[in-house]
C-alpha cells in the first residue's frame, strides 16, 4: 500500500541509484525536511531550543560516529574528545578573529589530525584493544584541556563562544542557531548516505567485515582505516564546533567528558550501527527520552498521583530508561533503525500481508 514498488520503473542507471528510489520514501524525506524548515513557526521556543536543536546537533555527532563505528567497524570510545578538540579549536580561532566559516574548517582539520593520530592505533589493534586506545585519547584530551589554562580558559575553565555570523546570519538568536544545526545535520545525512553507496563506503564496509579479506580483494586496509578515522574525526570536530556555537554558547571540559562519549556510542548502537535514520532515532532515545521521562514522572508526582520521595522520583526515569534499552535489545537487537524498517516493510504490503515472502 505505502512505499509501493509496483509501477516504479527504473529506466536509467542513475534513476536506480538515486538516494531514495521509491517515491514514497522521497516524499517522506521531503516532508520531514519541510517540517524541519518550518519548525520555528510550528513549535514554541522551549521545544525548539531545548529539544529540536540539541537533537539535531547530537544527531550530527552520532552520524559522524556511525561512519566510523557502523560503516568502517572501528570502535571509538573517545568521540566526545574529538568533538572537544573541534569545539575548542573553533572558539580559539574565532577569538583570534578568524571568520566562523573558516574556523569550522579549522575545527574539523584539527580534530581530524589528532583523531587520526590516535586512530593510527587501529592499524595494529582491533576490537576491545582499539577501545582502550580511544579511551586513552579521551583521558589525554580531558587532561590536557583541564591542565592547560591557555586552552581551557583559566581558573573557571569556561570559554564563551564569541558572537559570530555564518554566511551573514548572526549566530546569536535561537532561530538562526536552529537553522545552522539543521543545515549541518541535513548535510551530514546526505553525505553519509552518499558515502555508503560510493567506492569509499564499500571499501570501508569490506574492511569492517574482514580486514584481511578486504586486503585480498585489493582494498588498501592501511589507507582506508586511516581515512575512516580522518573523515569521521573531521565531521566530529565540526559537530563539536556546531555544538559549542549553536547550542551551549560556552564550552567547559565537562561537556565533553567520558560519559558523553559513552552516550554517543549508545546512540549509535541503540539506533542501529551504520544507519542514518538510526542516528536520528538513537540520538532522540539517548538524549531526549531521559528528559521526557523525568518530566513525566515529575508531572505525575506534582499532580498527586504518585507520592514518593524526591530520590525515588529522580531514579524512576533511570529505571524505565534501562528497562527500555533492555527491551529494545531483546526485541530488536539491530536497533531502532531495524524497527523502523520492519514497520516500513509491514506497511509496504498492508493490507495484503500474505504477499510478503
Amino acid at each position, binding site marked *: 500500500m505505502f512505499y509501493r514498488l509496483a509501477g516504479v520503473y527504473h529506466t536509467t542507471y542513475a534513476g536506480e541509484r538515486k538516494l531514495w528510489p521509491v517515491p514514497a520514501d522521497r516524499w517522506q524525506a521531503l516532508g520531514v525536511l519541510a517540517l524541519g524548515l518550518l519548525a520555528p513557526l510550528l513549535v514554541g521556543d522551549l521545544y525548539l531550543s*531545548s529539544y529540536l536543536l540539541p537533537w539535531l546537533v547530537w544527531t550530527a555527532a552520532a552520524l559522524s560516529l556511525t561512519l566510523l563505528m557502523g560503516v568502517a567497524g572501528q570502535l571509538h570510545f573517545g568521540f566526545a574528545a574529538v568533538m572537544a578538540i573541534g569545539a575548542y579549536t573553533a572558539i580559539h580561532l574565532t577569538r583570534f578573529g578568524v571568520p566562523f566559516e573558516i574556523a569550522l574548517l579549522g575545527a574539523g582539520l584539527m580534530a581530524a589530525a589528532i583523531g587520526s593520530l590516535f586512530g593510527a592505533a587501529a592499524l595494529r589493534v582491533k576490537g576491545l584493544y582499539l577501545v582502550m586506545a580511544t579511551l586513552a585519547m579521551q583521558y589525554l584530551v580531558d587532561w590536557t584541556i583541564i591542565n592547560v589554562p591557555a586552552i*581551557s580558559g*583559566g581558573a573557571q575553565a569556561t570559554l564563551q563562544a564569541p558572537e559570530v555570523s555564518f554566511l551573514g546570519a548572526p549566530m546569536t538568536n535561537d532561530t538562526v542557531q536552529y537553522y545552522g544545526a539543521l543545515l549541518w545535520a541535513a548535510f551530514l545525512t546526505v553525505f553519509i548516505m552518499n558515502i555508503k553507496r560510493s567506492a569509499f563506503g564499500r571499501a570501508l564496509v569490506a574492511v569492517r567485515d574482514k580486514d584481511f579479506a578486504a586486503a585480498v580483494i585489493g582494498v588498501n586496509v592501511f589507507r582506508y582505516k586511516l581515512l575512516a578515522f580522518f573523515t569521521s574525526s573531521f565531521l566530529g570536530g565540526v559537530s563539536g564546533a556546531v555544538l559549542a556555537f549553536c547550542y551551549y554558547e*560556552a564550552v567547559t571540559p565537562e561537556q565533553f567528558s567520558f560519559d558523553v562519549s559513552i552516550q554517543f556510542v549508545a546512540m549509535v548502537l541503540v539506533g542501529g550501527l551504520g544507519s542514518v535514520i538510526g542516528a536520528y532515532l538513537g540520538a532522540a532515545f539517548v538524549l531526549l527520552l531521559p*528528559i521526557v521521562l523525568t*518530566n513525566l514522572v515529575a508531572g505525575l508526582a506534582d499532580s498527586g498521583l504518585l507520592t514518593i520521595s524526591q530520590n525515588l522520583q529522580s531514579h524512576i526515569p*533511570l529505571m524505565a530508561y534501562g528497562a527500555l534499552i533492555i527491551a529494545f535489545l531483546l526485541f530488536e537487537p539491530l536497533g531502532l533503525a531495524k524497527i523502523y524498517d520492519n514497520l516500513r516493510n509491514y506497511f509496504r504490503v498492508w493490507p495484503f500481508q500474505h504477499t510478503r515472502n
Partner: protein
Amino acid sequence: MINRRGVLRSATAAIAAAAFAVSGFAGQALAQDKQPITFALLQDFTGVYTFVSNEYNQGQQDYIKMVNATGGVKGHPIELIVRDTGNEPQRGIEAYNRAVEEGAVLVDFLSTPVSRAMVPRVLEDEVVMITALHGRGDASDGQTFPYVFPMMATYWSQASVLAKYIEEHMGGLEGKKIAHVFIDSPFGREPLPILRELAERKGFEVKAFPYPSPGNEQSATWSDVRRWGPDHVTIWGAGGGQPVSIRTAIRNGISPKDILSVVWLARTDMRQVGFEAAKGVKRFAATATGRDTPVIQKIMETVIEKGNGTGDMENVGNVYYNIGVATMAASVQAAEHAIENYGAPVTGPKLKKGFEDIENFNAQGLMPPITITEKDHQGGGYGRVSMWTGDGWEPQTDWITAYQDIVWEEIEENAKQFEQGN
C-alpha cells in the same frame, strides 16, 4: 422533538450554571491567595552530586513548607519546581527553559558544570541564580554577574578562612609547609591562587598534590605528601574522595588534627573513616550544624512533627540539610525585601534587588551574618572552622572572614576575564 429540545436546553442551562459557579469559586480562591512565587530547584539527584543533593534539597523543601505553612512571603505562597538534571548541561538547559516558561524567578542547580553553562542565559533572561558553594567564584562580583548570587563563602574565601585558622589557632603560618591535596579538576585547583598569594605574604610554603578523579584511589598522591612532610594539609574534594583522603592521610602518618577540609565533609564521610579515627579533623563550616537553632526548631514544629517532612527525618540538622535551609532562608528573605521595597509580583529584577537589600541576615543563628550589596554577591565570605569530636562537629571559632582583599583581587581578575569571554 420539542421534548428532546427542552431537555437539551435545560441541560445546557445546567452546564452553564455549573460553569459559572466553578469560575466564580475559582475567582474567589484567587482573590484570597496572592500570586505564588516560583523557585526552581533543578538539581543533580542521579549523577555526581548525589552525596549532597538529597539532604540539601530536603532542607530547601522543608524550609519552603514551613514558610508556606506560616503564611507565605507576605501572603504569597512559594511554589517549588524540583527536577533532576543528572549533572548534564543539556538537561539543565531544558529544565531551566521549562522552569522559566512556568514563571520561575529563581533557579538553583547545585552543580558546577550546569551552573557554569547557565551563566550567560540567566544574565540574558534576568532570572536569579543562586550558586551557594558551587559554580563560579568570581560571580561574587555583582557588577559583572548581576543575576548570580553565590551568597555563601566561595572556595577562595574558604581557603582564606582555613589559613586564618592555622595562623591564629595552630601556631602561625610563618615557616610552615602546607600541602594542598585536591581532586584534579577546576574545583580542586580553585583555592591555589589564594594559598600561593598568602604563602608569599605570610612566608610559608604551599605545594599542590592532585589526585585523579573520582578519587577512590589516592595512595600514590599521599605517599608524595608524606615524603614532603607538611605541617598541615588542606583537602579539596567532594563526595567519595573525601573519606579516602582522610583514611589515606592517616595511613601515611598524617595526624587527623593537621587535616583541614573544604566544606564538603559530612557525618557519612566520617562514618567511612571511622568516627574515632577521624577525631580532630577540621572543616570549613558555612552554616551551623544540628537542630538547636530556632529555624530548624520551627521546621521541626510546623513541618516535620506534623508528618509533612520531605525525606528521612534523620537528615534534619545534618550539614547539607542545614546548608539547604540557609539558601532558602536567604532567598525568602530576598523575596520579602522585593515585595516590601519594590512591590508584588516578584520578578527576576525585583528579586535581584531584594537580594542586594539583605543586610546582616543570619537566619536566626543558622548561618553567619551576610550582607549582600550590588557589588558583593558573596555576602562577606564568612564561615567558621569546626572540628570532628568523634560524634559531631564542634565549632572552633566564631563566624570569621579573612583576607578578603586577596579574595577580591582574585574575584575581580576572573570577572574581568569573563567579560573578555572566558
